[in-house]
C-alpha cells in the first residue's frame, strides 16, 4: 500500500523531492560523491557514477581530497609490493622448478665451515682426554673396590698420583688453549713438531681445505685492549 493519491476527491501531489535529478539514472541525488579526476574535481552520482560538471571547491577541501587520493595510491602500492615479495617472479619460479626437476636428490648447500687446523686438533684431543679422565677415575674406583672387598690397605699416595696425572693433563690442555688464544702456540720447536705431526698423520683421512683453499692454521690471537688518549677534533683529551 502506497501513499493515498486522492483525498476528498482531490488529487494529492507528491511531495517535491529535494536534490538534483541524475540525467543518467533519473534518480534524485541529495549528496554527491566528490572525486578528483585528471580534468579537475567533479561531482559524481552515487548510484550510477555519472560525472557532473567540474566544480570549484575550497582549498582546504582540495587538500583533504588530495591526501585521501595519495593515501589510496600508497595503499595500492603497498599491496603490490607485498604481492611481489610473496610471489617470486615467474622466471625465478621456472628456474626453481627446473632445478628441482634436474637434481631431485641434490644435497643441501654446505654450511660454511670456519674451523681451523688447530680447532680440529683440539677436537681430536678432547675426545681422547674425556676417555683418559674416565680411566683415571676408574683407576681410583678400582683401588677403592679392592680396599672395600679385599680389605687391602688404602694407599693415599696412589690416589694422589692418579689425581696428579689427571691434573697435569688438565693443566696441559688449559695451557694449550691459553697459548692458542694468545697466538703463542706453534712457535716452540716441540709444538711445531706436534702440529706438523698432526697434519701429516691425518693427511690421508682429513680434509684440510675449505671452500677457497687451505684452512686457516689457527684462530686469530686475542688482542689486548689498552687505554689510550685519543685526539678528538684536534684536541687531546
Amino acid at each position, binding site marked *: 500500500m502506497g501513499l493515498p493519491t486522492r483525498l476528498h476527491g482531490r488529487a494529492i501531489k507528491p511531495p517535491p523531492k529535494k536534490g538534483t535529478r541524475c540525467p543518467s539514472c533519473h534518480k534524485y541525488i541529495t549528496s554527491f560523491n566528490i572525486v578528483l579526476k585528471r580534468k579537475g574535481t567533479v561531482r559524481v552520482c552515487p548510484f550510477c557514477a555519472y560525472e557532473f560538471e567540474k566544480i570549484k571547491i575550497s582549498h582546504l577541501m582540495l587538500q583533504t581530497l588530495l591526501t585521501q587520493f595519495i593515501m589510496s595510491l600508497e595503499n595500492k602500492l603497498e599491496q603490490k609490493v607485498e604481492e611481489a615479495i610473496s610471489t617470486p617472479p615467474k622466471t625465478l619460479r621456472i628456474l626453481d622448478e627446473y632445478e628441482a626437476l634436474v637434481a631431485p636428490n641434490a644435497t643441501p648447500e654446505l654450511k660454511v665451515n670456519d674451523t681451523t687446523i688447530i680447532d680440529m686438533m683440539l677436537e681430536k684431543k678432547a675426545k681422547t682426554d674425556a676417555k*683418559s679422565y674416565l680411566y*683415571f677415575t676408574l683407576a681410583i674406583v678400582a683401588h677403592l673396590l679392592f680396599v672395600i672387598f679385599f680389605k*687391602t690397605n688404602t694407599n693415599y699416595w696412589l690416589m694422589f*698420583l692418579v689425581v696428579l696425572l689427571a691434573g697435569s693433563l688438565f693443566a696441559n690442555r688449559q695451557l694449550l688453549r691459553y697459548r692458542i688464544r694468545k697466538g703463542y702456540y706453534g712457535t716452540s720447536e716441540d709444538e*711445531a713438531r706436534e702440529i706438523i705431526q698432526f697434519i*701429516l698423520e691425518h693427511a690421508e683421512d682429513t*680434509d684440510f681445505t675449505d671452500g677457497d683453499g687451505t684452512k686457516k692454521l689457527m684462530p686469530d690471537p686475542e688482542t689486548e685492549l689498552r687505554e689510550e688518549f685519543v685526539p678528538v677534533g684536534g684536541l687531546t683529551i
Partner: protein
Amino acid sequence: MNSSQDNLTAILKTLTGVMILKNPLDTAMGALFGIILHGLAAVFGSSLEKIVNLRISALNFLHYIAFGMFTFNIKNYVNRYKIDPEVEEALALIQKQVQLGDITVFEAKLLRKALIKKVLENVTLDAEARSNANVLSVIKNDNG
C-alpha cells in the same frame, strides 16, 4: 707478544706434556691396569709367594703403575709417527741458527710458523693432486 708469559707457559706445557707421555689415553689405561695389578698382588701375593719363590710384597704401587704405563705405551713407541727428515732438518736448522746468533728468537718463532704453513700447503696440494689423478683415471676408464 708477551715473551715472559710465552716462555713460562711453553715450559709448563712441555713439563705437563712429558708427564702425560703425549698419549694420555694409553697412560690412563696403563695406570688403571697397574692399579688393578697392584690390588691383585695385594690379595693373592702372599699365597703366590708360597708357591713361587718371589718376594712380591717388595714391589711398590709405583712399580705396578710404571709397569702398566710402560706396557701400554710400547705400542705407541714402536709405531710412533716419524715426520719427514726434511722437516726435522728444517727445525734443527732453525734451532742451530738461533744458537749461532744468525737469527733472533722471535724470527725463529716466525720461521717455525711459516714451516707449519708450508707443510700444510704441501699436504693439501698432495690431496688435490690425488683427487685429480683419481678423476683422470675415471675418465680414462670410461673412455677405455
